[in-house]
C-alpha cells in the first residue's frame, strides 16, 4: 500500500515516468525449448522448472550467487532436539492466483505430492519420512536419518494449492500409462509473480503480472511472452531482427557478433555445470577397440596420457570462443568441496603422453569409439571432435559417434559405451550429489551415471557416510579425501565448466543465473 502511494507521488512529479511505469513492459523471451508440462511435479527438468518458477513458488530458492534464499519459507532449521527434523516457518499473507490463502496445509500436500510414486521429483525427497503441519505457518519435515543438506533439494519443488488440486482432480501426478489428460498439465494456480494467460505448447506462452504477489518490490516486467525457438540460427536471427528481447541460449560463436551489434548486449556468467569425459574401467576388453585382450583405459598411465594430450585452453579459446572455464576437477566452483588446487590442470605434454602410452604397452596407440551428445551441452559435438583430434596426436584413433541426448544418455546409464562425453549440473550445490551418481559403484540408488563402472569400495563407504554425517567440518574433510582419490585415479576427465550467455536488447539487464533458471522478475530496464 505504501508503495502505491509512493508510486502515485512519483507519478505526480513526473508524468513521463507515469507513462512508462503504468504501461505494460513486455518482455519477449526466447529460448531453445519449451517447458514440457505445467504440472510442477511431473518433470525434473531445468527448462520446465525455469518456466514454473514464474507461476509457482518454492519454499527456498537460489539467488544469482547460488546461495539459498527465502521464498515461501521465511526460515528453515533443524529442530533443536531432533537432528532428523527440519522446521520451516512460512510466509504469511500469501495468496494463490485464485485468491485462496497459502497455508501449511498446502505445503504438506505439495511435498507429499512431490514424493508420491508418480512424481518425477521423488528422488529429491527420498529421505523424507513424514511431513506435518504444526500450525498454519509452520511445517515439520521428519527425515529418515540425519539430512543436513535437505533444504538444498527444495529449490525446484513447487507449492500447489491443496483445495484447487482436489477440486480439479490433480491430487496425483499425471499417469502416462492410464492415458489421462491431467488438468494441471495445462492449467496453473500458483503463488508466483506471474499468472498464465495463454499457452500454445512449443509456440508461445503469455504470462501477466500477478498484482497480488507478496513481494514488496513489483517487477519491472509486467508481461512475459515466452517463445521457444529450437534452431539456434533462427533464435539469433529473431533477436537481430528485433522480434524478441532476450535470447537465453546463445550459441557461443554468435556472442561476438551480437555484442558488436548496436542495441544488443550480452550477459555472461558461469553455470553450475561441468563437462567431462568418462571411460570404461575394469579388465574386460573394450567393445570398440582394436585392443581385444585388455582394456587400455584401465591402465592409469593411459588415462594420464590422455589428460596430458588434451589442450583445455585451446578448446576454450577456439571451440568455446573463450566462453568456458577449463577445470581439472569434475566439480563446479559453486559446489561445496571445490578448491583451487583440485581445479588446477596439467599443461599439455605430448612427448610425456606418448611415452606413457608406450610404457603402458601402446606405442602405436589404439582405436576406440567416443560417444557424444550433439544437442545437450554448449558445442558438445565440437568439443568431442576437438578431443578426437588431440588424442589422434598421440596415436589414439577415435571414431566419433554423435547422437541426440535422447539416444546418448541410455548408452551411458546402460554402460554400453567405452568412452563418452557428459555434463553434470549440481542442483544441491554439494559434492555428495556428484559422488553418489558418478563415482560410487553402480548399485541400486548409487552410481546411476557411473557409465565407466568405476568401483572403489573404500570410496563407496566414505560417500555413503556423507549422507548421515551431521558434523559439517568432518563431512567436508571426507569430501576433500574423496576428491583427492577421484582426481588421482582420474575417474573422470573434466574439461571445463560451462559459461552461460544471455543476449538481450541494450535497454534490458538480466543477470546470468548459475543454474540457467533466470527469473524475469530480476529484469531491469535501463534509462
Amino acid at each position, binding site marked *: 500500500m505504501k508503495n502505491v502511494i509512493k508510486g502515485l507521488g512519483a507519478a505526480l512529479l513526473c508524468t513521463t515516468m507515469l507513462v512508462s511505469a503504468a504501461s505494460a513492459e513486455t518482455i519477449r523471451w526466447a529460448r531453445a525449448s519449451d517447458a514440457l508440462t505445467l504440472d510442477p511435479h511431473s518433470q525434473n527438468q531445468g527448462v520446465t522448472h525455469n518456466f514454473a518458477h514464474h507461476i509457482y513458488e518454492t519454499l527456498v530458492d537460489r539467488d544469482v550467487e547460488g546461495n539459498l534464499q527465502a521464498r515461501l519459507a521465511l526460515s528453515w532449521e533443524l529442530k533443536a532436539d531432533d537432528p532428523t527434523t527440519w522446521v520451516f516457518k512460512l510466509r504469511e499473507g500469501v495468496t494463490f492466483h485464485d485468491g485462496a490463502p497459502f497455508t501449511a496445509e498446502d505445503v504438506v500436500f505439495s511435498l507429499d505430492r512431490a514424493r508420491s510414486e508418480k512424481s518425477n521429483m521423488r528422488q529429491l525427497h527420498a529421505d523424507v519420512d513424514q511431513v506435518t503441519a504444526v500450525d498454519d505457518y509452520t511445517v515439520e519435515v521428519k527425515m529418515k536419518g540425519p539430512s543436513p543438506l535437505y533444504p538444498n533439494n527444495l529449490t525446484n519443488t513447487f507449492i500447489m494449492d491443496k483445495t484447487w488440486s482436489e477440486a480439479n482432480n490433480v491430487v496425483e501426478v499425471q499417469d502416462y500409462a492410464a492415458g489421462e489428460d491431467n488438468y494441471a498439465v495445462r492449467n496453473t494456480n500458483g503463488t508466483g509473480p506471474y499468472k498464465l494467460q495463454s499457452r500454445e505448447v512449443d509456440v508461445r506462452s503469455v504470462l501477466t503480472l500477478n498484482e497480488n504477489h507478496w513481494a514488496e518490490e513489483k517487477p519491472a516486467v509486467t508481461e512475459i511472452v515466452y517463445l521457444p525457438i529450437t534452431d539456434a540460427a533462427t533464435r539469433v536471427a529473431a533477436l537481430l531482427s528485433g522480434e524478441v528481447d532476450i535470447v537465453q541460449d546463445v550459441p557461443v560463436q554468435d556472442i561476438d*557478433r551480437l555484442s558488436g551489434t548496436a542495441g544488443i548486449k550480452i550477459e555472461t556468467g558461469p553455470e553450475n555445470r561441468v563437462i567431462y569425459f568418462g571411460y570404461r574401467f575394469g579388465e574386460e576388453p573394450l567393445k570398440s577397440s582394436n585392443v581385444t585382450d585388455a582394456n587400455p583405459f584401465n591402465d592409469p598411465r593411459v588415462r594420464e596420457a590422455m589428460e596430458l594430450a588434451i589442450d583445455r585452453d585451446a578448446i576454450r579459446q577456439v571451440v568455446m570462443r573463450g566462453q568456458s572455464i577449463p577445470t581439472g576437477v569434475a566439480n563446479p566452483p559453486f559446489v561445496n568441496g571445490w578448491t583451487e588446487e583440485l581445479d588446477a590442470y596439467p599443461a599439455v605434454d605430448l612427448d610425456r603422453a606418448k611415452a606413457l602410452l608406450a610404457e603402458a604397452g601402446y606405442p602405436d596407440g589404439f582405436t576406440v569409439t567416443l560417444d557424444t551428445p550433439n544437442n545437450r551441452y554448449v558445442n558438445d559435438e565440437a568439443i568431442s571432435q576437438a578431443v578426437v583430434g588431440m588424442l589422434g596426436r598421440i596415436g589414439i584413433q577415435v571414431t566419433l559417434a554423435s547422437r541426440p541426448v535422447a539416444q546418448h544418455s541410455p548408452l551411458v546409464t546402460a554402460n554400453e559405451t567405452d568412452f563418452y562425453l557428459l555434463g553434470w549440473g549440481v542442483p544441491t550445490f554439494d559434492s555428495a550429489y556428484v559422488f553418489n551418481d558418478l563415482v560410487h559403484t553402480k548399485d541400486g540408488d548409487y552410481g546411476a551415471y557411473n557409465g565407466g563402472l568405476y568401483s572403489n569400495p573404500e570410496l563407496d563407504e566414505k560417500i555413503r557416510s556423507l549422507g548421515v554425517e551431521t558434523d559439517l567440518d568432518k563431512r567436508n574433510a571426507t569430501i576433500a579425501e574423496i576428491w583427492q582419490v577421484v582426481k588421482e585415479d582420474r575417474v573422470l576427465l573434466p574439461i571445463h565448466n560451462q559459461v552461460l550467455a544471455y543476449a538481450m536488447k541494450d535497454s534490458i539487464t538480466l543477470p546470468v543465473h548459475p543454474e540457467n533458471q533466470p527469473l524475469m522478475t530480476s529484469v531491469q530496464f535501463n534509462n
Partner: protein
Amino acid sequence: MSMTETTPPPPATPPAPPRPEGPLRRFLDSDIFYSWKRSPVTILATVTALTLILIAVLAPWIAPYDPFNPASLNLMDGFTPPASQGPFSDNWFLMGADNQGRDVLSTIMYGSRVSLFVGFMATLFAMTMGVGLGLTAGYNGGMIDAIIMRIADIQLSFPAILIALLIFGVARGLIPANQQESMAIWVLILAIGLSNWAQFARTVRGATMVEREKDYVSAARIMGVHPVLILLRHILPNVLGPVLVIGTIGLALAIIEEATLSFLGVGVPPTQPSLGTLIRIGQQYLFSGEWWILFFPAVTLILLALSVNLLGDWLRDALNPKLR
C-alpha cells in the same frame, strides 16, 4: 484399294549421310554428341561435374592437407579466414579453416568424396532394385505387378527424406551402438537407395509392358526362351535410355538428400564429413562472421547438384527427340 508400300517408309527425321566406322567416330557423329556440342551450358555442366568428381576421387593425392590426420591439425588454427596463414602453424588456408582448424578446401575435397560415393552407391542400389522390380512387375503383370506398383505408389507419395529418416531410424535400432559409426555410410546408402527405387520401377515397368506385347518378344516366348533371358536381352536395352536419365537426375537428388540428412544430423559422422555435414557445421557460424565455413561447401554442393541435374536434363531431351 490401296497402293502398296513395299519399301519401308523413310524415317521422320532424315538420317545422316553414311559415316566412317569405328565406335569413337560413331559416337562423335551421333545425335547425342551433336546435341551435346550444340549446348554450351551442357558442356559447362559436364566440365564442372567431371572436375568435381575428379577432385573428389583424387582428393587424397591433391588435397593440400589431410583433414583427417590429427597430427597435421592444430585446433588453434580454427576460424582462420580464407587466403591466409594459420596463426599457430605453417598451414596456409585458401578457403580458410573451420572450427576444428581443418583446411576448408581439403575438407570439401574429402567431403565431396563422401557425398559422391554415397550418391553413386545409393543411385546404383536404387537403379538395380527399381529396374529389377520394374521388369518383374511389367513382365509378369497380375498380382505381382499390383503389389510391387502399389508399394511404389505409396512410397512415391512420401517425400524421400521422410522415408530415408525412417529407414535410418530402423537401421540405427538394429545395429549395435558401437558399430553404428562404421556402418553409418552404408546405412545412409541403403536409406537413400531404398527411398528412390520407385521412380525406376515405374518407368521400367511401363516400358516393359509395351515391349512385352511386341511380336519379337512373343516369338521368343513361344520359342521357349527363358523369361530372364528375354528381359535381359530384349527388354532391358529398350529401357536403358529412360533409366539413364532417371539415374542421372536421381544422382543429383541423392546428393541433396544425403546433404539434408547430414544437415539434420542423421548422416555421416562429423569426423568423416560429407558436404551436408560441412554445411551443418558451417551453418552455426552464419551470424558470427565466419562465412567461409558455410559458403564454400554450400557452393560446392550446389555446383555439384546443379551440374549433374543439367546433365540429366540435357540427356532427357537428347534421348527424347520429340522434345527438341
